[in-house]
């Protein structure tokens, strides 16, 4: 029971700094779940990230996967609820006043200020997952190729995910 409570509290804390959504939280989830509590090892964390990538739905659901592996169904419910509840309540209370503070100098400043931090977080997430998976030269080649193709062409990301899966199935990575 105390495990589920720990999970819940840690993910409530995470939800409060989730600027940029669950994707921006990957580095911190890794730090808390793998390094601090040793709930999961590097390999499992990488696998869960991959499963979440390949599944439909909002990308916040990676937290349900982590919760499941750490604490079964109660764990999955705890992490998902913890991630969604605090901000849902806050937005419920604030939405009617949004027109009042939207566009004010401090609001614009926070929006502008948070953007470069989110860039750094997402870059860190990709780096840490690549390191956790201890990619070899070929896998890094795939990372680079996917990045370039995604930036240069309109190809749907799902095709790139499928290509990665096939290469992995073939045992090349």
């Amino acid at each position, binding site marked *: 029971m105390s495990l589920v409570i720990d999970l819940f509290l840690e993910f409530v*804390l995470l939800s409060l700094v989730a600027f940029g959504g669950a994707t921006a939280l990957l580095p911190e989830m890794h730090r808390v779940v793998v390094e601090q509590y040793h709930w999961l090892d590097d390999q499992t964390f990488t696998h869960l990230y991959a*499963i979440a990538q390949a599944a439909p739905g909002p990308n916040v659901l990676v937290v349900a*996967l982590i919760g499941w592996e750490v604490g079964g169904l109660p764990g999955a419910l705890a992490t998902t609820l913890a991630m969604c509840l605090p901000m849902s309540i806050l937005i419920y209370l604030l939405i009617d006043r949004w027109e009042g503070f939207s566009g004010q100098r401090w609001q614009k400043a926070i929006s502008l*200020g948070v953007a470069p931090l989110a860039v*750094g977080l997402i*870059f860190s997430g990709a780096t840490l997952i690549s390191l956790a998976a201890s990619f070899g030269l070929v896998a890094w080649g795939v990372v680079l190729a996917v990045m370039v193709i995604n930036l240069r062409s309109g190809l749907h990301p799902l095709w790139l995910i499928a290509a990665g899966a096939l290469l992995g199935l073939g045992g090349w990575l």
Partner: protein
Amino acid sequence: METTPKPVEPDLMALFLGFSSVGLSGFGGVLPFARRMLVEERGWMTAEEFNTQLGLCQFLPGPNVVNLSVVVGKRYQGVAGAIVAPLGMLAGPFLIVLLLAMLYDHFGSLPLVQGMLRGVAAAGCGLLFAMAWRMGNSIKSKRLFLPFSAFTVLAIAWMRWPMPYVMVVGLVLSGGLAYWMLGRK
């Protein structure tokens, strides 16, 4: 004047089903699908309303689409709607993800599955780097603000400092600079 179809007030069931369809439709983010459902298909919001309200959802931390479902649910059915809409959005994908987790628990140790997941992770990381690149590219005054991205990478990926502290410090410095710049114009 343009004639717009009169929006039908969705009841709880309609909210649940509408957001279920959004939750189940997207891979790697469902925001575009949310917009299509709300604005184009059902007319629950105008395009302007969508943009304004999404503003707060993106301004606050947390999953944007979940925040958005709370806003729409509240608008049409109060507290009950604000609970039912996000539930609809998350219930289906939640079950799918748990099903995948159970499959993983059984077959995850097979070399074939591990290889496949490695491949997906590599592609996923490529997409993340691309996303970071695109977001970095859309920042104005790059010379002033990209150092904060570098600071974040250094603090988070290299030093492994806890993110809440890094975000507070980063937000005070980066937001402070933005606040000062906005005042000069």
